[in-house]
């Protein structure tokens, strides 16, 4: 699906497709258009043709980075609300997750830490039996341990629900490396890279004139980014070849000089 939206000095133009059984990552800086894309997908805002995307709200679960239930409520009260509001709410799953993550069901949310609130949001969204999950920066502000717990919960969910698709955004890209199956890199409203196989990327150091740079994409200083790692591993034993992580890809795709 293609989404086009123009604000005063900002134009978003992205094609995005969510496939069943896959976790798709949306990676970009703050202000690159990730949240706008979420809103367009959900039909919360009109696109440039005054068209709003039609989605089945029962089938989609959403977590916004800054959203929360009222902080005076506790988990027991929230559970009641969810039971009345959602026909597919899975009470047993919800209870088991609350105890797995040792969240106190009787404590009002205002006494919860940032990590606890994030876990609760993910537990709620996975309890609704939604077919599509849109998670906007679900791990931001979390420490390493809490982040991995949240990501593990998502992995469990995918294992148990094979037809679900998840779209997850983050500017802490390393979070998404071992989780996602497809990666969209967004910059200034455009998809600058769409990739499934991050393993083929590498950083090349110690490049001299004997090195064939036909497969190099970008350069920052004397380091080159390639998407043909095996070619350089096999042909240049003396070259220093490092794995390119998502953060490297972001930096090189945005700041790098095109070869």
């Amino acid at each position, binding site marked *: 699906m293609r989404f086009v939206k123009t604000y005063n000095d900002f134009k978003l133009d992205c094609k995005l497709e969510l496939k069943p*059984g*896959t*976790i798709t990552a949306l990676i970009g800086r703050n202000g690159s258009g990730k949240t706008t894309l979420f809103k367009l997908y959900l039909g919360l805002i009109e696109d440039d043709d005054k068209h709003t995307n039609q989605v089945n709200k029962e089938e989609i679960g959403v977590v916004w980075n800054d959203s929360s239930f009222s902080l005076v409520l506790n988990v027991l009260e929230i559970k009641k609300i969810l039971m009345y509001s959602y026909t597919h709410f899975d009470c047993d799953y919800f209870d088991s997750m609350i105890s797995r993550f040792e969240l106190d069901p009787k404590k009002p949310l205002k006494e919860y830490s940032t990590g606890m609130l994030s876990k609760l949001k993910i537990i709620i969204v996975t309890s609704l039996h939604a077919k599509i999950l849109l998670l906007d920066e679900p791990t931001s502000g979390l420490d390493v341990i809490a982040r991995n717990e949240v990501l*593990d919960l998502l*992995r*469990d969910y*995918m*294992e148990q629900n*094979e037809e679900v698709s998840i779209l997850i955004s983050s500017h802490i890209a390393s979070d998404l490396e*071992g*989780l*996602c*199956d*497809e990666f969209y890199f967004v910059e200034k409203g455009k998809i600058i890279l769409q990739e*499934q*196989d991050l*393993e*083929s990327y590498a950083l090349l150091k110690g490049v001299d004139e004997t090195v064939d740079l036909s497969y190099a994409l970008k350069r920052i200083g004397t380091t080159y980014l390639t998407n043909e*790692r*095996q070619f350089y*591993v*096999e042909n240049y034993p003396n070259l220093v*070849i490092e*794995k390119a992580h998502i953060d490297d890809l972001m930096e090189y795709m945005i700041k790098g000089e095109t070869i």
Partner: protein
Amino acid sequence: MIIINNSSMIPIYEQIVNQVKQNIVDGKLKEGDVLPSVRGLSKDLKISALTVKKAYDILEADGLCRTVQGKGSFVLGVNPGLVHEQRVVEIQKNLEKVLDKAKSYDLSQDEIRDLFEILMEE
């Protein structure tokens, strides 16, 4: 059990393929055994499901396992001779690469032979 080395330059799917093959050759995986589900293994190893899928596809193409939709991937019976043959082919390919490189560096056949003998003695 499969162990992934994240800092290795061997692609992760290849690491999985190699280890499953090794387990089959060592008899740790037997005919009819079920491999972990794609999502299950991806969760355990914290890697993308597509990487696991790629590895399973290669194993299937190599005739080492068969995937039944909705049931999982099963290990097929392998002839140990076949495994050996595959390895010989693999080594042959690697040697060909080395020889190509040696030729491009203008090494003589005798020099290559000498090197090979020295290494074999070690």
